C-alpha cells in the first residue's frame, strides 16, 4: 500500500511539507507478526471465520490472511476496524508498548506470576511504579540507581560469603546476623537507630522503595532482577511491622534471592524455611542490634531478670527499645532472646503477656517525639529517585502529570497540576486549560506560506 498525498485546492503536499519518508514494508517485521498472531487468535476466539471477518473489516480475505501471517502491515486506518470487528481493544492487538524494556518486562512478570487470579494490591502498586519508571527511562533519560560505596562493599561481600543457602536454622540465624552487622559496619551506623529506613535502602543499595496503604493485601513485595529492584511495603500495619517488613524484603534483595518476585504475607515471612529465617534474622539485627540491647539495658540498670519477669523496669526497657529503634514487640523480644537476655522459649509467653502499647507508654518519659511503633501510620511514600525524576520530566513536558500522580499516590487533578507545574513560578499553562479542553490541535510550523 502506498501513501498518497493530499488533496485540496492548493495542491498542498503534507507529506513533502513534513519531510515524511515512506515507511518500508514490512516496517516492523516482529511487530507485524505479533499483531497478525493476535488478530488471528482474537478472530478464532470470537468464532469468526475469515470470510465473515473480512467482510466486517472491509478488507479482502487475501489481505486478512496476509495480516494474520505477518506478511502485510496493518495500516493505522485498518487497525481500529479490525479491533471493532473482534470486540477487542487496539492495545490488546498491539501488546504493551516497549515490553522489551527490562523495567516493563519485570512489571509484566509481576503481573503474570501472581499465584491467584486477582492481582494483589502490592502487585498492582509494584506494576504501576515499574511502568512509571519505564516511561521515565524512555522519555526522560532516567538515571540508573547506584550503589553507595558501602552498598557496593556489601554487594561484594554477599557475592563471596553468602552464596550458599543456609542448611540449618542456626546457620540461617548466623548468616542473617552477620550480614546485618556488616551492613551496619559498612554504613558506619554503629548501634544507632535507623530513622528513615526507606531512604537508607535507596541511598545505599540501589533499590526503589514504595510504601502504600494496601488494605488486606500482602505485607510486602520484592521485585528485582539484574536491572532494577523495587521494594513495596504495606502501611496498613503498625509502624514496627512495616519497618520489619521492609528490612525483610531488603534482605531478600541483598542476599540475591533467586526469585524475581517475592510477595509475602505475614505467614510467609515467618515461615519455617531457612531462607526466610535468614532474612528475618537480618531484619531483626539490622533494626535492633545486639549491642544496642546490651548497651541500653546497662544504661537503664536493667537486669536480665527484670526483662524475664517483666517487672516495671523491664517493661520500661522493652518500651524504650521498641520506641527508639522503631520495632515491634515481637522483634524486640526476639532480639532480646538473641542477645541471651531471656531464653528463646520465653519469648512467646512474654509476647502474649505484655501489651505492646502499654510498654511504649511506660517508656514515654525516656523518649519523646518519636512515632510509636504500635501505631498504624498508613502513609504513602513514593520512591524518591523516581518522583524527583517525574517532577522534572513533567515540568519539561517529557511525561504527563499522571506519572507524577501515580508515584505520589494522588489524584491526577487540577490541584496537583498547580502544585507541580506552577511550583517554580512558570507561566506555561495553556490558557485553554482554564475553560476546558478544546481538543488536541497540532500546529506544525514550517516554511509554507499561508494560502490566504
Amino acid at each position, binding site marked *: 500500500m502506498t501513501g498518497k498525498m493530499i488533496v485540496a485546492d492548493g495542491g*498542498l503536499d*503534507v507529506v513533502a511539507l*513534513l519531510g515524511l519518508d515512506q515507511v518500508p514494508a514490512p516496517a516492523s517485521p516482529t511487530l507485524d507478526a505479533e499483531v497478525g498472531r493476535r488478530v488471528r487468535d482474537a478472530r478464532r476466539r470470537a468464532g469468526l471465520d475469515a470470510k465473515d471477518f473480512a467482510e466486517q473489516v472491509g478488507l479482502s480475505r487475501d489481505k486478512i490472511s496476509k495480516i494474520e501471517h505477518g506478511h502485510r502491515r*496493518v495500516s493505522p*486506518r485498518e*487497525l481500529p476496524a479490525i479491533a471493532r470487528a473482534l470486540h477487542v481493544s487496539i*492495545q490488546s492487538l498491539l501488546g504493551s508498548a516497549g515490553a522489551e524494556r527490562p523495567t516493563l518486562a519485570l512489571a509484566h512478570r509481576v503481573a503474570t506470576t501472581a499465584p491467584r487470579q486477582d492481582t494483589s494490591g502490592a502487585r498492582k502498586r509494584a506494576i504501576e511504579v515499574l511502568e512509571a519508571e519505564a516511561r521515565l527511562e524512555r522519555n526522560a533519560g532516567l538515571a540508573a540507581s547506584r550503589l553507595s560505596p558501602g552498598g557496593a562493599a556489601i554487594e561484594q561481600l554477599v557475592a563471596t560469603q553468602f552464596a550458599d543457602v543456609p542448611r540449618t536454622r542456626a546457620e540461617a540465624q548466623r548468616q542473617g546476623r552477620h550480614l546485618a552487622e556488616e551492613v551496619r559496619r559498612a554504613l558506619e551506623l554503629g548501634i544507632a537507630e535507623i530513622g528513615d529506613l526507606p531512604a537508607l535502602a535507596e541511598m545505599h543499595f540501589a533499590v526503589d522503595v514504595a510504601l502504600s496503604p494496601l488494605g488486606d493485601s500482602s505485607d510486602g513485595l520484592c521485585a528485582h532482577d539484574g536491572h532494577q529492584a523495587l521494594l513495596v511495603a504495606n502501611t496498613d500495619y503498625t509502624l514496627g511491622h512495616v519497618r520489619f517488613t521492609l528490612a525483610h524484603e531488603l534482605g531478600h534483595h541483598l542476599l540475591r534471592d533467586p526469585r524475581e518476585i517475592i510477595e509475602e504475607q505475614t505467614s510467609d515471612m515467618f515461615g519455617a524455611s531457612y531462607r526466610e529465617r535468614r532474612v528475618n534474622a537480618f531484619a531483626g539485627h539490622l533494626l535492633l542490634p545486639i549491642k544496642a540491647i546490651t548497651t541500653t539495658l546497662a544504661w537503664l540498670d536493667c537486669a536480665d531478670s527484670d526483662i524475664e519477669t517483666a517487672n516495671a523496669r523491664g517493661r520500661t526497657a522493652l518500651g524504650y527499645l521498641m520506641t527508639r529503634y522503631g520495632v515491634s514487640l515481637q522483634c524486640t523480644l526476639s532480639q532480646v532472646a538473641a542477645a541471651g537476655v531471656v531464653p528463646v522459649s520465653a519469648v512467646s509467653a512474654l509476647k502474649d503477656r505484655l501489651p505492646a502499647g502499654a510498654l511504649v507508654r511506660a517508656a514515654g518519659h525516656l523518649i519523646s517525639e518519636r512515632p510509636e511503633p504500635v501505631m498504624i501510620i498508613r502513609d504513602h511514600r513514593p520512591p524518591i529517585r523516581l518522583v524527583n525524576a517525574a517532577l522534572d520530566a513533567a515540568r519539561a513536558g517529557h511525561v504527563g502529570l499522571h506519572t507524577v500522580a501515580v508515584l505520589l499516590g494522588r489524584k491526577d487533578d487540577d490541584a496537583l497540576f498547580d502544585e507541580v507545574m506552577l511550583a517554580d513560578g512558570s507561566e506555561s499553562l495553556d490558557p485553554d486549560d482554564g475553560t476546558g479542553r478544546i481538543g488536541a490541535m497540532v*500546529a506544525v*510550523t514550517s516554511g509554507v506560506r*499561508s494560502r490566504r
Partner: protein
Amino acid sequence: MSTTARLWFLETSSRLSLAVGPDIEAAMLAEIGSDPAVVIDVVADEIEWRTTKPTTRTLAKTALARMPGDWIQMDTSGVVDIADIKQAQADVADGRVLSDEQQHWAESVIIALGRGRRSAKIGSLSRSDRRGW
C-alpha cells in the same frame, strides 16, 4: 506579506468540539485562521464510527456535516509506522487505562506523523499531549 505558517492537524475530540456550539466553533476557527487544516483518514473513520454510538451520535453527525470544504483530507497509509503509533499512544496514555478501545489512537497517529518528520517544528495545544516531541 508572509505570516507564521502553521499546518493544523485536528484529532477526533477537536473535530467533535467544533460541533458542540457556535462559540467553540468560532473560537477554534479563529485560532486556525487562514492556516491549512488537515483531517487524517483515521480521524474521519473514527467520527463515522461515532455516529453509530448513542453517546456521540449527534455530535459526530454535526461534525461531519460542518467540516469546512477547504480542509485537507490525508491518507496516512504508508507514511507512519504502527510501532511509532503504538509508542505515541503509550506516551499519551501516560499510564492511564484507556477508557475505550480507540482512545488516543487518532491522536497518536498524528503524533507519530509529527515525530517522523524531517522538517518543520511541531507543538500541541493540548495540555495532556505536550511531551516527548
